[in-house]
């Protein structure tokens, strides 16, 4: 039986009413459908967290791995089968906290996947501890005196690590978010979209209204190809929060560089030339 519908049906979710995740998953569905993706060739991947439940809620292929480990699994799945469209949807704790090492090093690999980080500046699933992006002074049951660490700046870190597509959006801005998602998916290489997402239950500071008041679109005159300008924008996070493509640069991808992948046949379907085994054996004789 083969289902030829191009619709990404939605299942019932376990999110709180009013959660920013609803906006994001709707945009994701729309972006994939507008790109005319066949659900059979899409693979949604995630770690663990509230955001990380996203892949479970759309009718397509899904991989719900370990907390913090979505990227290594995702880039390897893409290497194994270049025909898959791979999108990672997961939380900022998952992406930048537990998964921080994979974040900085997978940017360096530049495999062609999209990474949509639902950034609610809090650990949602574990009920409200500070996340890497929590602002200084953010009070929680663990950070009883307020978070004391310098907040993690995802855009700066991504640019510093060498990412070629770095964007920010807001779950309450569906028109822009769909656009950015589509561009990220079409971009050849690793594409990051950090998506500001209110958590109505555990983050009473960075609310919908908070973001709404602060976000603004980068205007036409802004050139995302100018790295120093991009860095300046990436550093801007306070009363004003720029959204849109912060930085873009075309770079060689993992596929471009790795000779094993230079054929049109995806790795998972490549067959070993049996004569090679004889040849390799001979080398030991």
């Amino acid at each position: 039986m083969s289902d030829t519908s191009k619709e990404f049906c939605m299942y019932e979710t376990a999110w709180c009413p009013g959660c920013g995740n609803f906006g994001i998953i709707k945009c994701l569905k729309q972006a994939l459908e507008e790109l005319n993706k066949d659900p059979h060739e899409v693979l949604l991947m995630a770690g663990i967290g509230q955001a990380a439940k996203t892949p479970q809620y759309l009718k397509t292929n899904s991989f719900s791995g370990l907390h913090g480990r979505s990227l290594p699994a995702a880039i390897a799945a893409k290497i194994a089968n270049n025909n898959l469209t791979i999108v990672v949807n997961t939380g900022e704790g998952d992406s930048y906290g537990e998964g921080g090492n994979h974040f900085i090093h997978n940017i360096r690999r530049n495999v062609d996947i999209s990474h949509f980080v639902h950034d609610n500046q809090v650990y949602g699933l574990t009920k409200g501890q500070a996340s890497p992006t929590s602002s200084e002074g953010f009070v929680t049951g663990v950070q009883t005196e307020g978070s004391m660490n310098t907040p993690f700046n995802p855009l700066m870190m991504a640019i510093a690590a060498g990412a070629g597509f770095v964007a920010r959006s807001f779950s309450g801005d569906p028109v822009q978010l769909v656009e950015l998602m589509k561009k990220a998916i079409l971009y050849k290489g690793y594409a990051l979209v950090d998506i500001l997402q209110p958590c109505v239950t555990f983050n009473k500071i960075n609310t919908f209204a908070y973001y709404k008041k602060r976000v603004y679109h980068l205007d036409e005159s802004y050139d995302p190809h100018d790295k120093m300008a991009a860095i300046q924008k990436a550093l801007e996070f306070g009363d004003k929060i720029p959204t849109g493509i912060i930085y873009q640069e075309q770079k060689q991808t993992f596929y471009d560089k790795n000779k094993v992948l230079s054929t049109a046949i995806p790795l998972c379907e490549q067959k070993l030339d049996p004569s090679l085994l004889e040849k390799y054996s001979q080398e030991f004789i």
Partner: protein
Amino acid sequence: MYNILLGGAAGQGVDTTGTILEKLLKQAGYQIFSMKDVMSRVRGGHNFTLIRFGPEKIDSHSYKLDGIVAFNEETIEVHKKQLKPGGFILCDASFAAEGKNITKIAMNEMAKTIGNPKVVGSIAIGAILKSFGETLEHIETVYKHAVKSEYLDQNLQAVKQGFDSVKKHHEHKDGAYAKWMLLTGNQAISLGAIAAGLKFYSAYPMSPSTSIMEYLAGKMTEAGIVVEQAEDEIAAINMAIGASFAGAKAMTGTSGGGFSLMVEALGLSGIAEIPIVVANIQRPGPATGLPTRTEQSDLNFMISASQGEFPRMVIAVKNHEDAFYQTIRAFNMAEKYQIPVMLLSDQYLADSSAVVEPFDFAKIKVYQAPEPIFEGEYLRYKLTKDGISPRLIPGTKRGFVAADSDEHDEAGKIIECAEMRIKQVDKRFLKLKKLAMEIQEPEFIGSDTYDTLLIGWGSTYGPIKEAVQYLNNTSGKKFAALLFGDVYPLPTKLLAEKVKAAKNIVNVEQNATGQLARLIRETTSITCTASILKYDGRQISGEEIIAAVLKEVAK
């Protein structure tokens, strides 16, 4: 059978010299077993290679020497006590050591004259060839692959000068092994992985596993394998799992410390039922321990690693040939049962070389999972009679594929329901029923009547075999041994049968706590009556086992 030792500081070329010499000896028709003893440093210290060779089958190393080639004076100091009567020492003319068994050649000077101080090793090689009655017939072929072309002539000249500077001591013996393969344990695993259809190998460098990655990296473009150095071991195994999920046969390799970081993802492979092969090339722990040495102390750890419970398989490789075939089997079992399969080897096998019969690729069966047959919605975790859910690879038009680290229903969606939880746990464990029928019993060796039954696993295979043969031939008592390869699930049939006749059951292990003995008792209640345990980072030899057994049996 002869046994020679090449010793010197790190950086003096002991390793390279040994590698070339063993190739030449194999070309001359000999069996070889050569072992490396290396310090965890790049320069200085004291390293040595043991090369045992002869026209008969050789299963392991020995510490009793027929000859010592000393690149520094320390080598003589440390090893001269191991010399058998009649054994020789070969060293540079400048060394202070004296004795009638010492042959000195002005190697350093000769090398300088040749114009390359690094050819000292080749001079020694020439001298060794002459001593043992060999010719220079194979030197060009072997050196051509071993040194850069610009240094070829200097080295050949060095070999010849070394050859001419000593007298023949022994006669050449005819061996039938010139056309066999000479390779290390890690090379055997690598070749096995390629033969099994490996497409993706991800790892983080760690001694003594790195040479697997290096071998594969040398073949990657030609063989169509993506070899990726990960940022850490957590990434390495999660990459392998991701690649396997998407349909590329995947493996990762490491040593115990790296495996420690892979533990969580092992459970992901277990619950998400994604096949994966993990090789742990053991070294002595805990923590950093002795990084370049050998031990068998991760067995208990591997069989219970990761939170929760799920089926897995652990295969200990016994020798070089076994390493090749078991690696293929590891992939097959992983694919068939959709479980993590772990290969346990150690530094001893990893870095030692042995001569094995050329692999018969025609005979190898690579398991091919059947195409899933289903109507309606595809269910990744379908409850089936044998616990194996037909596996679809994502990206076909046939259905949607889910992988889930949470407990899930048949479709792969998170659940919390008690009934489905029990069903999925039971389904996963059900796979072990079928798997049990494919478990390989240990190899039984020795006398059919015996008082003492030795028990070993993995790389002590060779040393125990040698010890049993020797004991049966010389001690007047009768011995046998059970040598385990499959260690988890533990095969128990032959064990139950063979312990009946034994008065003494002695486990021989390269660890401090007798890990296999514990596993045996856990599984069968059978208690070993004595233990021979070694945990100084050096592999136990046949002669050490003999001595220990005689002591145990005597007491």
